[in-house]
């Protein structure tokens, strides 16, 4: 048991920091976009991620056969945490969800077409699982795919597709067998988002971010763009979700917000008294600091268990996601409570405490315990898979 980084890992971390210093740009790095900073939604962010790709850092855990380094997952973790700390775009869907699923289950054609592009960051993806009537119950998706020639015709609607308005390809689940049990009638497709018949409508959120409804009207997809086997899509989705639960919710933003709050409490006075001398405030800071350390070492344990690109440990992913997102909310609540009336001021407002981060963190984090599997769904997963309790639906 050892909690220190190896000399190679320290050297890598330093190299990443130097690279980030050299490429510092407020349009690429913006911590005030909170957890949405990770998406690669502007030309400048794309350009930056291409440079990350040039370094060979997008395929750290991928097999050498496909341009990867077959290296330890801890390096991917260090890179992502460094990117997240600065509010930069992160290694996400392309390398993690789509790339790893294609590597495990995709045809040679899909591998040849997509894997090199992913490693050079020449393609952005949107992911479509949720529908108006399929949220937590994702397996009940109804977007219909019917057989048509050498392919499929898709009709229906997806929702909460965050990247649809700038991505090129849609990674989308559709029902290919309506008579099978709901988990066994879903197939994963790759669809170009400029395909005729696709309509994308924006939905604006409390976090000032855009997500989308996506409508399919007789959209044709060739058999070549079916991912893996027909009707096995939900299994692939579940595997990838475990990974998403970990990579989407990095630790360093939590640490950074904790530092901001601690610094505020340490320096602020109220009615002539140091805020840090208020026993209620001290108690709250101590509790949160402890929970931040818990999240940090829990994340390290997850990395240790899922190194070398093996399958991510399911219940650990759920545990981490559940705890980290609930902690983010507790931290945001505490920042609002402790910061007082000024916390209602918008981020970037000069007079706002904690650089206005209290309110932006508060607005953004409310979605974290809902997206990527709600907290209650994570508890179901933990109870079923780790405690062996019976299914309740």
């Amino acid at each position, binding site marked *: 048991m050892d909690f220190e980084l190896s000399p190679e890992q320290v050297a890598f971390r330093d190299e990443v920091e130097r690279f980030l210093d050299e490429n510092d740009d407020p349009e690429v790095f913006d911590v005030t976009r909170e957890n949405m900073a990770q998406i690669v939604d502007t030309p400048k962010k794309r350009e930056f991620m291409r440079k990350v790709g040039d370094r060979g850092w997008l395929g750290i855990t991928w097999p050498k056969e496909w341009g990867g380094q077959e290296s330890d997952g801890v390096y991917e973790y260090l890179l992502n945490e460094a990117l997240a700390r600065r509010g930069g775009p992160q290694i996400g869907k392309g390398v993690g969800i789509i790339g790893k699923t294609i590597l495990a289950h995709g045809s040679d054609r899909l591998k040849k077409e997509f894997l090199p592009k992913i490693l050079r960051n020449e393609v952005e993806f949107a992911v479509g699982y949720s529908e108006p009537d399929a949220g937590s119950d994702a397996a009940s998706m109804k977007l219909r795919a019917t057989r048509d020639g050498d392919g499929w015709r898709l009709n229906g609607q997806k929702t909460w597709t965050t990247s649809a308005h700038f991505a090129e390809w849609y990674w989308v689940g559709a029902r290919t067998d309506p008579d099978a049990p709901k988990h066994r009638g879903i197939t994963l497709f790759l669809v170009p988002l400029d395909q005729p018949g696709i309509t994308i409508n924006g939905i604006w959120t409390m976090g000032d971010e855009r997500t989308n409804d996506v409508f399919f009207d007789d959209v044709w997809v060739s058999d070549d763009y079916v991912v893996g086997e027909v009707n096995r899509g939900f299994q692939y989705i579940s595997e990838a979700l475990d990974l998403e639960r970990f990579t989407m919710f990095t630790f360093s933003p939590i640490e950074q917000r904790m530092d901001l709050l601690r610094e505020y409490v340490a320096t602020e006075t109220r009615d002539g008294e140091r805020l840090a001398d208020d026993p209620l405030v001290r108690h709250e800071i101590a509790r949160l600091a402890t929970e931040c350390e818990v999240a940090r070492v829990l994340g390290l344990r997850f990395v*240790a268990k899922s190194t070398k690109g093996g399958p991510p440990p399911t219940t650990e992913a759920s545990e981490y996601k559940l705890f980290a997102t609930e902690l983010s909310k507790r931290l945001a609540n505490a920042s609002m409570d402790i910061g007082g009336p000024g916390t209602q001021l918008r981020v970037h407002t000069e007079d706002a405490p904690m650089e206005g981060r209290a309110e932006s963190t508060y607005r953004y984090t409310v979605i974290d315990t809902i997206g990527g599997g709600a907290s209650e769904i*994570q508890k179901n997963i933990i109870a079923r898979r780790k*405690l062996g*309790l*019976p299914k309740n639906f």
Partner: protein
Amino acid sequence: MRFAFTEDQLLFQAAVREFLEKECTPADLRTAWTSATGWSAGRWTKLAALGVTGLTVSERHGGLGMDELSLVPVLEESGRAGMPEPIVATTAVGAPMLDEVGPDDVRERWLGPVAAGRAVLAVGLAGLPFVDHAESADLLLLQRGDQVHAVSREHVTLVRQPALDGARRLATVAWEPAPGTLLADGELAAAAIESAFDRGALATAAQLLGVTQQLVNLAVEHARHRVQFGQPIGAFQAVKHMLADALLQLELARPVVYRAAYSVARGVPERALDVSMAKAYASDAATLAGRVALQTHGAIGYTWEHDLQLWLKRGWALAAAWGDAAWHRARVGAAVLPVP
């Protein structure tokens, strides 16, 4: 970064678990509750043969010479089994403290017998009102100001303080320094007192992990088999989520306790902070798991006859020992918000 125990550490843990499953059953615990000392000298001797009692004693004195990273998995097992023997007082705190302050003749006289399971140590620090296993101890290591003294059992006056956990024998200790009792003073003693406290808190946190695991196990077992409204109650989300919450707190506490073990073993500067985070978190986890386990069991869990009480009470007792969660959080607060 190697975030796992070594194979040897895990094998040792498995051996202790196997031993305790046979030799420290709920029936044995009930025997301990009504016995004179609250623990079994016979079991302690067998644990000595396994190497447990002398785990932290140097090889020169007949022990295994291992550190906290090897001790913590064993302490988890002792908590899971509800083991009442003085492993915290003697092995986790007493032996390393004695080794730190010496002097050589005292080490020679006591560490061998500790490793052999023939001598029991108790530790009384200022600020901790009760001493566990004081009545059974052959030697008490006692703090007075900035001094550490070693006083034999016959030279202290004990007042028994009956605890809610019947196997946990506590006492207040009255004693006077005498010629020959002083082991160390000044900086050496101050450092030994600080590390003794951190070792005690860490060891108790590790035991609490085991207690919490057992509480979760008992509750899950009950939830899988108890049928109401035509199905196992574990199928109901109100029950399932409660159990998932308890398990989560345990899974969260574990790496923090391991981190603290690493910090104590390596003597890193943040040792006290890491230990306090671990003890606060492990105490809260055990308290939550106890509440959840009792609620899951329903009325049967409230009975004397049911074994749940053995771990509930141990959890409550250990959560309050070596600094409770609130105390340790205050220490975390002092570390993260230092007074200028």
